[in-house]
């Protein structure tokens, strides 16, 4: 039971740390809620409060044009006591969601899919961290803590994705599709993870006793995902009453990006500057750019679907329309599963430095622009570029390391040789 004790210690410490933070700094959650790096228009807790206020007074929550999140969150939060007068229950609810996410991470790590799957077996499979360390890295990641304290609803999307993956690696493909359906219902973009996830389920199933037919397996699971989303949409329709209003206020808002509030992503500045007549075209380009990686990565890493999911999550953290640090924290949560690739990575220092640099200077430059008035939008935009650069370098490096790992597996006699770009 040593491992269990470690797990309890890590979970307890993470819980106490969060509790201490909100007890010592009671204004911290509200401060973080207002930060553009943490709260985006589609995940902000403040906007959720607004929607909740309207909902509890029997007004359509989308009437104010402020709330753009999924309607099923409303009855859930209506059960919790008011966050303004008694913030603790809501905060503890978020803490528990974080711990659940960490639990899912542990089960992903325990399955060992990251180092050894049906078609692939890493060269350095002994170099790895155990599940509790991975969970600890997730729980004590400042980005995760900030997201949790800011009560961003991205946390639920994260849960959906992590549970989908943990169920998939556990062989429970139906639950995986249900969880992915929930995540897609909340944030739309997780639907892009369907192909690698279904491949992951398929590989797991092939290892089992009764290997299914691949086409019917994929079609069945696609149908299941669609049915899940349709069911959730039906429930939402019951709650809001007006189907098209809620579709255009939530998914329309995701797809058409009408709110150009600054965030850590690359879309807002681009679309502020874009000529109106080309706006639709470039919306299409940006979304296709985001989606185009799915096919390429899946084709290349057919043997490692979990790695495809990890790298796609990294790509989403950079290129999705309203990214926040919580997307980066999800990417960083899955990265430690690939401890065995770290020795092959070449630019970790540069990437780490860029990420640290931008996460320290970002708030400062935002302050200079918005509050001090001594900077302009370019200050903050430059920092978000550095942030994206850091993430991209890290991502490219991991992908490079994974390719190198596959190559070494094919050519065992050349393990450890230096490579040089010509």
């Amino acid at each position: 039971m040593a491992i269990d004790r470690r797990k309890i210690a890590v979970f307890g410490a993470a819980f106490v740390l969060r509790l201490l933070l909100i007890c010592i700094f009671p204004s911290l959650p509200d401060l973080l809620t207002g930060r553009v790096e943490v709260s985006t228009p589609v995940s902000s807790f403040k906007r959720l409060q607004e929607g909740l206020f309207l909902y509890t007074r029997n007004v359509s929550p989308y009437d104010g044009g402020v709330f753009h999140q999924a309607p099923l969150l409303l009855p859930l939060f209506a059960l919790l006591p008011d966050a303004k007068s008694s913030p603790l229950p809501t905060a503890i609810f978020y803490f528990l969601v974080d711990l659940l996410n960490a639990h899912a991470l542990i089960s992903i790590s325990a399955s060992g899919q990251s180092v050894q799957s049906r078609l692939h077996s890493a060269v350095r499979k002994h170099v790895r961290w155990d599940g509790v360390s991975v969970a600890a890295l997730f729980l004590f990641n400042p980005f995760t803590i900030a997201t949790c304290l800011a009560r961003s609803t991205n946390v639920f999307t994260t849960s959906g994705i992590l549970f989908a993956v943990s169920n998939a690696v556990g062989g429970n493909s139906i639950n995986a599709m249900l969880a992915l359906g929930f995540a897609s219902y909340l944030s739309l973009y997780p639907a892009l993870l369907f192909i690698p996830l279904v491949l992951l389920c398929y590989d797991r199933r092939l290892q089992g006793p009764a290997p299914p037919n691949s086409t019917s397996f994929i079609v069945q699971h696609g149908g299941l995902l669609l049915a899940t989303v349709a069911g959730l949409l039906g429930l939402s329709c019951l709650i809001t009453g007006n189907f098209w209003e809620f579709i255009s206020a939530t998914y329309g808002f995701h797809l058409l990006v009408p709110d150009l509030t600054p965030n850590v992503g690359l879309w807002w500045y681009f679309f502020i500057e874009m000529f109106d007549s080309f706006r639709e075209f470039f919306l299409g380009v940006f979304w296709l750019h985001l989606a185009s990686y799915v096919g390429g990565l899946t084709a290349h890493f057919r043997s490692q679907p979990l790695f495809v999911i990890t790298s796609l999550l990294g790509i989403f953290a950079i290129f999705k329309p309203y990214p926040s640090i919580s997307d980066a924290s999800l990417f960083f949560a899955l990265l430690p599963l690939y401890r065995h690739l770290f020795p092959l990575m070449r630019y970790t220092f540069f990437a780490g430095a860029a990420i640290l640099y931008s996460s320290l200077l970002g708030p400062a430059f935002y302050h200079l622009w918005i509050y001090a008035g001594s900077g302009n939008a370019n200050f903050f935009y430059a920092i978000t570029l550095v942030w994206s650069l850091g993430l991209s370098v890290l991502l490219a490096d991991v992908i490079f390391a994974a390719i190198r790992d596959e190559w070494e597996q094919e050519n065992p006699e050349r393990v450890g040789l230096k490579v040089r770009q010509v």
Partner: protein
Amino acid sequence: MTTKTGDQESPLASQVDPQTSVSRVPPPETPAAVQTRFRVIAAFWAVIIFLGFPIWWKTTSIYRASLPLEEMVHWADGKTCRPVFPLEIHLSTPSLPYIEAQHLLRTTQHTLDDLNEFAAHHLRLKLANDTTGDHTGQDSSEHVNYAARETPDTALTVRLLPQEGLASPRSELHAATTQLDVFYPPSQIPVSSSSNSPLSTFIAAELQQLYGEEKATIAHILSGDTARLASTSPQLAEDISRRLRRSMKYAETYHLSFSLFTPGAEPSSWDIEAAVNEYVSPLLQALSPISNFTVDTQVQLYANFAPTAPKPEYDESEAVWTLKKEGLSAFVNAAEWPLNPSIGTGPTINFILYVPDPSQSPLVVKENSASSWIVPQWGGVFLLNPPLSNDEQGSRSNPAHLSLGSLGPAFMTFSHQLLTLLGTPSTPASLPLRLQTSIRIRAATLLLSASSTMGSLARLTESLPSIPIPATVATSVSTTLSHLTATCSHLREGRFGAALASARVAETEAERSFFEKSMVGQVYFPDEHKVAVYLPLLGPIGVPLVVGLLRELKRIAAKRKAKAS
């Protein structure tokens, strides 16, 4: 930044270290790796071809609704419609038997036709149905249901009244109605045999004179050339072009702004609401078929002249302060007086009531002692010199409040100025007749202006093939054309009120279609600039994709060749 996985292979595949060891060449790519690379490139290109190109096509194609270009150009060239103005004049002959009245009508009409030299504008006489002829003067207040009526508008009613003891006929125009009374000696009733009589000549000449200015104005508008009409005196032509210069450009809505300016603290209030109700509202009511009006008022104290404006001079002989005529243009201190140039859409007509400082009172214009003048296409100014009161110290001051009575002359002047600024002709003396004239002139102006806008839009559409034409523009154009047709037929049938109503719709729609925002935006965006829009983002994304595709194609071609040989 493009983490394109296909490219990541190249450093590995070409891994070579020639300096340390020549023996270490990279192992050949396995067929599986080649296959994978092909799949990756195919995946990216599939997205581009099956999703990218449709999106590109859908979002950047320019929608051009089809416009009836030829018809629009014909309207602009005046080929479709030749506006005519047949004025129906009722002849009411309560004391004449029917046959004689008929005869008088015929001869008068004959004389009129002989006199007329401008075919587009002609007068048609008609015997009034009710011989009592007492429905006069109703038309000006009945404009609301113009469109509903099928019969032509009655322009004028001529009442023939016998009067003893007259040597020759004389006429009398009612100032407030559309009625012309003609008194004639009973001896002058035309006999059936004669083709001409002094009475019919007199009536014809009278009518001709009554509509002389209108005819000249319409001729001026339609042809842009007053010299064409021989009967138009140079004096009249000059008057007309001066009036057209001074009057405001036509607008659907005018904003009237009445401002009280005074250099001191008093007067600080005025009975403006009562004055507007008393003097302006009835006029606006009468003008409502022509345009809509809004009224704003303001009081501005301590309003000083501009420093560069000439100061009033004291005239000893008249004991008044005077402003030089040439200095009037600098009277309005445009920089400091808050005269909003535009309240909403549509132009603002400013009326300024200026109460001079007690030390400079009374203030008049030097040359003619006038106290008001018109600023062309801008508004009017009235200098009000209220009676001064003496207080205990013996200094004089303006009254604190301007009563309705003291505002009367000023607002009479303002209403007159308003009519002038709106381009209402100065003759004849009857206001309803002038308003009717105004309606006809406006209908003609709007017809021409909407037609020429259509022509401009057609030319614009033809000369700029890259601008989008939204469906709303096509709708507006068809509305304009149908209303122009309606205007034309209403004019032909003499229903001028309905013609103006249609013409107003046509003009509004024409302007809307011509100034459609989404159309204008593209004018400044030539095709060459699209490179600058596409390249910065799509270039960097596209180069690796295209290079990857070419490499792959080369490889496939080489493989085919190897297979064939």
